[in-house]
């Protein structure tokens, strides 16, 4: 008799736990879909986008609709999966779209030499704003458009940089 009582209690507890888990799972699902397809916050750090982005870390809002719709253009700051290490995501500025001719400083720390290149079909040319300390298309060449993951449009942290990013 006592065993039956225990089992009944456990059953109701288990049912409640399952209901709560289902609610949490649905919430995470919605959060994940929003993060991947609409808008997501990202922490970016490093010297390659000074002075636009700080060295020690900025929280940026990126939207994921523009690359899908083909609305990424020159001058946009984008999140790009690195062609050299597919587990890393880079933040750089798009300087040239397919068909553009880009002129760039090969190694501004040591020389004034300039070089010119045409961006092939389906690719983009990305550069960091701080060309003295940035590893970008000047080193690994134009990047396929399919690697662009999102377009940065807003800065959330630090508070004195809150707002849209300047060109």
């Amino acid at each position, binding site marked *: 008799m006592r065993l039956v009582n225990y089992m009944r209690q456990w059953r109701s507890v288990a049912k409640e736990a399952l209901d709560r888990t289902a609610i949490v799972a649905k919430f995470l699902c919605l959060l994940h879909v929003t993060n991947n397809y609409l808008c997501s916050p990202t922490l970016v750090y490093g010297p390659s986008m000074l002075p636009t982005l700080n060295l020690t870390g900025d929280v940026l809002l990126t939207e994921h609709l523009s690359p899908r719709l083909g609305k990424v253009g020159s001058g946009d700051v984008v999140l790009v999966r690195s062609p*050299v290490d597919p587990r890393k995501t880079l933040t750089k500025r798009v300087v040239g779209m397919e068909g553009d001719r880009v002129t760039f400083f090969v190694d501004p720390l040591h020389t004034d030499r300039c070089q010119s290149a045409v961006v092939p079909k*389906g690719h983009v040319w990305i550069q960091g704003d701080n060309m003295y300390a940035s590893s970008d298309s000047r080193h690994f060449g134009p990047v*396929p458009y399919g690697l662009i993951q999102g377009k940065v449009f807003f800065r959330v942290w630090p508070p004195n940089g809150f707002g849209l990013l300047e060109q």
Partner: protein
Amino acid sequence: MGLRKLWQYRSIVREAWDQTTAVATFLCGLHVTNKYLCTFGMAYGPSMLPTFNLTGDLFLADRLSTRFGKVGRGDVVLVRSPEDPRKVVAKRLLGMEGDSVTYVVDPKNSDRSETVVVPKGHVWIEGDNIYNSKDSRQFGPIPYGLVEGKIFWKIWPPKEFGSLGQSRMKDPDL
């Protein structure tokens, strides 16, 4: 009298809402499975003959292998095209980063072959039908980030149901 009508509508609206959320939850689950676990697709075109037919084959592709880096030489992979980011193509992976790949540049017109080393973070893909395939021989090695899935099973046509064999035209260990 009007109030009763409103009450009836309320129950209909509630039932419609419940059905909609059930359908939405199901689609959500389906989408997550398609994107992160396993998806099916149709491949058509001449570039992967004889492995895939010209007019279209249905296959299953898994997405976990690429996430964990478990794709290797000889696998048929789904890749986002570097020339048109809206297209996804199926090709065979022949070289990982650091490999030295020897390929025939233009088999229809000449026997000339070239050797290239695959740079870091990139892979070399080729279609099984080298006479009619646009692949790394034309657009170079592609970044690993463009690899989206590994094809492991064919569902249609029924007489070819089963796992994909190794390439019958090239030895992937070369």
